[in-house]
């Protein structure tokens, strides 16, 4: 049992932190790519910018400024600093529900990013700056995992994180492979793997054979890699089935959707997906994620009171 508003806040903390981590990583990889050939750099910048927002020619041409915007632009709602400010504001509203260890990690990274010296730190060493943010967010997740009770609140936090992750990776795959599979060069494909934090785990499965089709297969369907869409949908389903246990059957909407999506990825066949067109499959997955999001709201947060009043 927990307050509906609190569950909502924890869910959003999960989402915002996941988004901040992803955007920081994309910004970092976009900057690293500037060391490659100009065409590769532009290709990587296009992918990174499209995956989290809009890729205009000006933005692609100025990767350093674009990366700084992704990290520090307060006017951009999906920048790292904005996401973390929102995560932290939500955490403040449920300060009594999260452990001090968890709170401290989030508060610290927020203070560092919103402080007066953030822009200077970025200019002095953008890669180290972004790397530290990602490392701090890992510490946050570790602290949450190791110090919070693995009860309802923690499950809402992870539900938000995995739903966000599935959508972010789904969007990235759409940008890369939605319009056909064989057009990206080798350094770009490596950059895509890095954007999903998947390079090393991928190499262990497929060895140094970096090609588009196995990358798509790995990020969509691998059962063990924690950032594949299949893995995230497994988690979403697992958390929702526990969370739905105490709601009445009529409210089991999101649980049913999550189970169906899980099965869809569990029994998917790569050849079939390709025949259909990978963009069709990805669109379907993203739409299902959106439906689960609304379902969570209807079942746990914004339910009509008439249904729940004592007789």
């Amino acid at each position, binding site marked *: *049992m927990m307050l509906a508003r609190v569950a909502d806040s924890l869910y959003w903390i999960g989402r915002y932190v996941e988004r901040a981590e992803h955007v920081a990583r994309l910004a970092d990889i976009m900057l690293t790519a500037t060391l490659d050939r100009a065409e590769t750099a532009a290709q990587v910048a296009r992918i990174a910018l499209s995956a989290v927002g809009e890729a205009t020619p000006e933005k692609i041409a100025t990767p350093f400024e674009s990366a700084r915007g992704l990290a520090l632009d307060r006017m951009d709602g999906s920048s790292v600093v904005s996401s973390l400010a929102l995560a932290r504001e939500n955490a403040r509203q449920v*300060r*009594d529900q999260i452990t001090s260890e968890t709170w401290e990690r989030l508060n610290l990274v927020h203070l560092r990013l919103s402080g007066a010296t953030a822009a200077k730190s970025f200019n002095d060493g953008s890669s180290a700056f972004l790397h530290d943010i990602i490392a701090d967010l890992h510490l946050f997740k570790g602290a949450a995992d190791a110090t919070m009770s693995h009860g309802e609140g923690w499950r809402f936090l992870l539900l938000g994180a995995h739903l966000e992750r599935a959508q972010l990776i789904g969007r990235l795959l759409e940008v890369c492979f939605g319009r056909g599979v064989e057009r990206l060069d080798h350094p770009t494909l490596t950059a895509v793997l890095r954007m999903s934090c998947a390079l090393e785990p991928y190499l262990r499965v497929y060895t140094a054979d970096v090609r588009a089709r196995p990358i798509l297969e790995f990020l969509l369907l691998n059962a063990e890699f924690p950032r594949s869409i299949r893995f995230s949908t497994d988690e979403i389903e697992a958390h929702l089935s526990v969370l739905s246990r105490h709601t009445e059957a009529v409210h089991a909407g999101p649980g049913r959707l999550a189970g169906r999506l899980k099965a869809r990825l569990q029994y998917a066949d790569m050849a079939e997906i390709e025949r259909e067109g990978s963009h069709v499959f990805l669109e379907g997955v993203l739409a299902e994620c959106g439906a689960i999001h609304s379902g969570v709201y209807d079942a746990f947060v914004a339910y009509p009171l008439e249904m729940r*009043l004592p007789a």
Partner: protein
Amino acid sequence: MATAQRSEEIDRALAQEAAETAAKADVKPPYDEMHAPDGSVRPHFAIMARRLAALGPGELDERQRTLERFFLLQGITFTVYGAESSTERIIPTDLLPRIIPADEWARIETGLVQRLQALNLFLADIYGERMILKDGVVPRELVLGAPSYRREMQGLYVPHQAYANVCGSDLIRQEDGEYAVLEDNLRVPSGVSYMLANREASKRTFPGTFRLAGVRQIDRYPDLLLTTLRSMAEWRPNPQVVVLTPGVYNSAYYEHAYLARLMGAPLVEGRDLVVHDNMVYMRTTTGLRRIDVIYRRVDDDFIDPLTFRRDSSLGVPGLFNAYRAGTVVMCNAPGTGVADDKAVYAYVPEIIRYYLGEEPILPNIETFLCREPAQMSHVLANLDKLVVKAVGASGGYGMLIGPHASAAQREEFAQAIKADPENYIAQPTIQLSTAPCLIDGEVDARHVDLRPFILSGEKITVTPGALTRVALRKGSLVVNSSQGGGSKDTWVLAGPGDDLS
């Protein structure tokens, strides 16, 4: 920079002026918490004095920075909202603890228990039979005309007659060292989280000294608070307690979340609660759940738009009716403010004698009520010596400190008093006692007051510790955090019979 410089100049001028006034009026010097008049260190400060002498020059400053970092990290902050962005500041905290010996504390404790007992009886009486008004001990119009009087509370049953479940009284120390009560806070007193956070900080800063000194523990406060709150709903087998906060934008939000977390009670906002058939529920992920006790940190005016202020969105429509129906308890009870009214304050010694038949253990500060014509003329004739307060104001606003004010300011107040005498009281200017504080890396004396916290439910308990508020500007007598005040930890030393906890 310019403002800092100017405020320094003002400080200097103020200190000088205070010294001159003191010399002219032959005012006694303030009581020094650490040093006896002959300059020797008082015995209960001896351990701390030795520790301070052993520290290197930069060390204290270093520790102060560590402490500030700890506060910032924990989010013990208040938010200052600006045009462009909002910034967070920590409450200025001084790391040198104020120390109170066991015998002094014993007197404070019994005095506070006596006072709160009498004030609870007073509230039960004025919202019941009104015997004290019929007997003419307290003027009828003073009570019934007070803005904080709530006629909605008339005849309502309050368990254990405990109206003010959480009370934070402000004590000051007069020039002769005697403690006196300056103000009772019976509405929604705050500051207890700073008491607890300051303790965490001072334990880290002076671990050895803390152990040697034999300091009584205060960390049971959340536990005692929960016990007190639960004792207000004894008819329920396992009462559900919640903390009601105005929300994250309230300056005391940190404290609300802190207490909720340490009590293990949900922290709710008005929008989380629903009243149905005079029962109060909270919206949970699995439906509605009934609530029994609300520790509300929302002012009377805002708790229920149907009963009090209609424009309030912080409260819960129908909450007061549920309270009247007795299905839920609110702590503190609405309408307690009438007993900490600045004009009613003058009658507290009489109230203690009336209900308990005892002499007050802790004295009041002599108070002149401008509503009485004779007292008003005395106030007007002595504006340069008195502190004048508006009855309805708090937080250090609407106040004139006569000896520090200019002739023009005094004239302005004289006009205001004449125009609305009932709204003003006056008290002699008391030189609050001074305690050593760390100011810009140096130890220097600053004026302090003392806010202990008293809980009353089935019984009354005083936590052996307090929030010591500090006027950080030299010579200033205003300790409110909204007016440049800070705070520090308060060590209550264990006596022969005291358990450390």
